[in-house]
């Protein structure tokens, strides 16, 4: 076996080379831009079409159930969904079950609203054109409470304004008044929203999840308990393409493409080496 050009031990020792290659694959596309057009997935289009079909003044509940660890994937989705709401004149009502993400959620909204204002030459005002309800604990039981009475569940918004007096929530009393609910989840909150929210109160539910959680959503997509899905950074990129805006999702697709290519190449390379060894009668 000593005649083999690549010994298993040498493959194992190449960890730092792999780290270096991954680093290059992530960074290079930001230096050398390669145009890679792509077609948005039908799961992303399902969510886009659902929101696109809403009328001006309708309400959409956006649950930003993630923390900074997942922001690379879920934050671009949040921004894209907010931009879509602002473009349509739909009122986004944002909340979270994750206290660690509260400040980040506030920043997403407070940055996106003026950005949308510049894009469509309008002023989007807090409490009128969008509402930020902030954090509440409780997941399942709190969804039930929101289904009974939203303004009891949230007596004040994040900025301590009474929700009874917010012009953006004039026609909203319960979750049933939401034309769409979208949960951007780093955990298992989508399942809670399905079991205790959409199945019980009858509103359409969309989901945005990290790439590792996206496969869990497919049974709910098939049963139409989830009307659309944004899976990982690709999901965010799909939504940005559908919306025809640029953002971190589309930008990140270059880096993700090269990294995935590298991973596939590395796996195939390692298997070819093992296969050669097997042909020559050696052990892995």
């Amino acid at each position: 076996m000593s005649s083999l050009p690549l010994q298993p031990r040498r493959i194992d020792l190449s960890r730092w080379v792999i780290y270096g290659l991954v680093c290059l694959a992530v960074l290079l596309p930001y230096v050398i831009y390669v145009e890679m057009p792509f077609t948005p997935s039908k799961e992303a289009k399902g969510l886009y079409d659902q929101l696109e079909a809403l009328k001006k003044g309708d309400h959409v509940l956006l649950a930003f159930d993630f923390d900074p660890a997942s922001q690379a994937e879920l934050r671009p989705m949040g921004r894209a969904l907010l931009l879509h709401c602002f473009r349509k004149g739909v009122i986004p009502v944002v909340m979270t079950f994750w206290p660690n993400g509260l400040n980040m959620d506030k920043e997403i909204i407070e940055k996106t609203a003026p950005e949308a204002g510049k894009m469509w030459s309008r002023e989007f005002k807090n409490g009128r054109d969008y509402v930020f309800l902030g954090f509440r604990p409780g997941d399942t039981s709190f969804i039930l409470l929101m289904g009974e009475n939203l303004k009891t569940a949230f007596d004040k918004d994040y900025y301590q304004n009474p929700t009874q007096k917010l012009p953006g929530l004039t026609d909203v009393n319960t979750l049933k008044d939401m034309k769409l609910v979208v949960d951007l989840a780093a955990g298992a909150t989508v399942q809670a929203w399905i079991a205790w929210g959409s199945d019980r109160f009858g509103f359409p539910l969309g989901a945005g999840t990290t790439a590792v959680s996206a496969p869990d959503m497919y049974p709910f997509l098939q049963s139409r308990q989830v009307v659309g899905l944004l899976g990982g950074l690709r999901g965010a990129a799909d939504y940005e393409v559908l919306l025809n805006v640029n953002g971190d999702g589309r930008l990140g697709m270059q880096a993700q493409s090269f990294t995935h290519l590298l991973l596939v190449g590395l796996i195939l390379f390692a298997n070819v080496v093992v296969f050669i060894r097997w042909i020559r009668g050696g052990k892995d």
Partner: protein
Amino acid sequence: MSFFKRLTLPLLIVFGIGLLGFAQEFVPHPIAHDFTEAMTTCFKIMGGFAMILGIYSLTHLHVTRIRQQGPGWGYSMFVFLGAGVMIVLGVWNDGVGPLREVSEGKTYFDWGYDYIYVPCQATIFSILAFFMASAAFRTFRARNVAAAMLLIAAVVVMFGRVPVSETVGRWFGTPDVFTNATDFLMNGPNLAAKRGIILGVSLGGLAQSLRILLGIERSYLGGQD
């Protein structure tokens, strides 16, 4: 403590509340709605007590480690330093006080969140990509038919999920070939397996709930049958 207080009373409370919680699902009466609201409030209160318990547990663990100067005791100091500083900054809230909005600009609490907490969490999560690449390279081997199928599925999904797959597909005149293969894997084998797991877990959860309601499962009372 008598047997009744120690065992029978808790079981009766669990049975009673469990039965009411189950029944209110099917009773469209204002009393049932009020009960739901009351239970939600109770849940939040219990959450508060759970947080106190969590803080006590965390404090106890790290104080013990510092006192005994066990492995990594220096990191335990940072737990108190980080928590203490953020609690003080949050309560102080730039002189405005807790639960009040500062009219302009970012507070010191925001600064700590934006420039320490967010980058730290994002960094920890992002280095997973490096470990995953290394682990996949070293362990993903087609040693038998099942492992080969898993490997092929992983490679197809990994490749089909990124735009470069469409670019490569275009070279062969079929831009959707990898995307379609990925969709087949996700909507076929993946969906079937996930649904099976969900059904299994749900039935298990249902059985466990019934065992708790009927007093068969008592380990939550302290591990005694």
